[in-house]
């Protein structure tokens, strides 16, 4: 989800929280404090890149963006999630033909 949030544009930590909250229409909420250690790990792994951005009259903030390997990882994860969610969806809402076949 963090990678997906960064796919459209580089964001800082709170920006990521807002993006996920906004896109999920408030259903999903990140454990905000847990976000930063994860971002640091992703940075050390080379999945994301962090650049400090200076702000006038405020402390600098770190803006994260996806690296090439991060983008590849996102595509892979997205594919996995799609397959999983489709499978779960099919269990809850079986296709008509299958439902008739079983009946």
């Amino acid at each position, binding site marked *: 989800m963090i990678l997906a949030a960064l796919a459209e544009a580089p964001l800082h*930590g709170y920006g990521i929280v807002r993006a996920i909250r906004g896109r999920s229409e408030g259903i999903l909420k990140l454990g905000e404090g847990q976000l930063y250690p994860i971002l640091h790990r992703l940075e050390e792994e080379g999945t994301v890149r962090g650049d400090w951005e200076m702000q006038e009259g405020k*402390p600098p903030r770190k803006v994260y963006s996806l690296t090439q390997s991060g983008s590849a990882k996102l595509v892979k994860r997205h594919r996995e999630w799609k397959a999983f969610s489709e499978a779960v969806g099919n269990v809850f809402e079986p296709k008509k033909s299958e439902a008739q076949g079983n009946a």
Partner: protein
Amino acid sequence: MLDYTNWYLVELERRLRGVHRSDELITETKVHLEERTDELLRKGFDRITASRMAIADFGDPAALVWSAKHRAFPSRNAAIGWSIVVGLLLVSWMPASFMQTFGLGRYEEAVNYLLGPFIALVLTLFFVARYRVWFAVWAMGVALSVSLVATLFGAATGTPLNVPGSGQTTFVAYSAMPAQLKVRERWLNKSEGEIANLTALLKNAKAGKPGAWDALVGPKEPYFSPAQYERYGYGAQILPSDMSERWPNIWIRLGATTFGPWGMSGYYFRHDAIAAWKKLGDAYLAGVRAHQADVEEEIAILRNPPEVGFVNRFAFVAMGIFSLTLMLGLPMLLMNAIVLAIGGLIRRGRLLVWRKSIA
């Protein structure tokens, strides 16, 4: 007015002291809390409420600190990599043991033994650097200090340390390395008279005189004295162990040298095996007779003893340090791996908080 944000940051800073990249975490937390508070202010909340809500959303500082401290083992790849390192540590002694068993570098065993730990150490340091497993550095440091003290103590006093417990043999053997060198030197510098005596015994044995083999390698054990056992404990076994390297039964030899990857427990096993072989009587003597050439070779070595030079001395001490580091560090590393792996799972479980049921 009570400044909750500032209080939170001070508390966080206190708890994050010494944690990797704590400065960055604090700065990012500060920016985060300020932005969230501003957003809530814009929505009409008063400052105190907004500040408290921002902190509540950010979460317990203890959870963040735990996460920051244990974040080095989160990914599956890192877990697999770390497991491989631990596995390599476990088997690192095996090649050295086999090399020694088959007689490679017989009088350079220190170098052989160094190979495994050296590879393991390089790999460990690589993973420590790659995944920032700082706890592992601490564990290695503690283990290294203990082993260094033990080795230096052994070197200074020539007395093996007797530490009760399962690791006793290994600990004693390695801490006694310099003492073993002394025994070896003493043995290799045996007087001409002693060597002549052994040669005579061998001659008698070859001639088939009753009791000659027994006198040479049997119950009297001419290679080391009870006094040496008293003085040097298991360290004294190094010498007779070398002498009994050429056991006729290859499986016992393998068992002796590979039994327990930490090496020296093999000598303990060997000691028991010697006692058992003595009881076997004829079978034992027959085995030794079959390896007459080896016994002759040993005596030839006695006549022309190899040098125990500085490099070998250094290697023995280094071997003691490395092996004890691994011996003591390994359980800590394993515990570290388990704790971090569990931590990773817990953290993943806590990452998502369902605000309301989707159903």
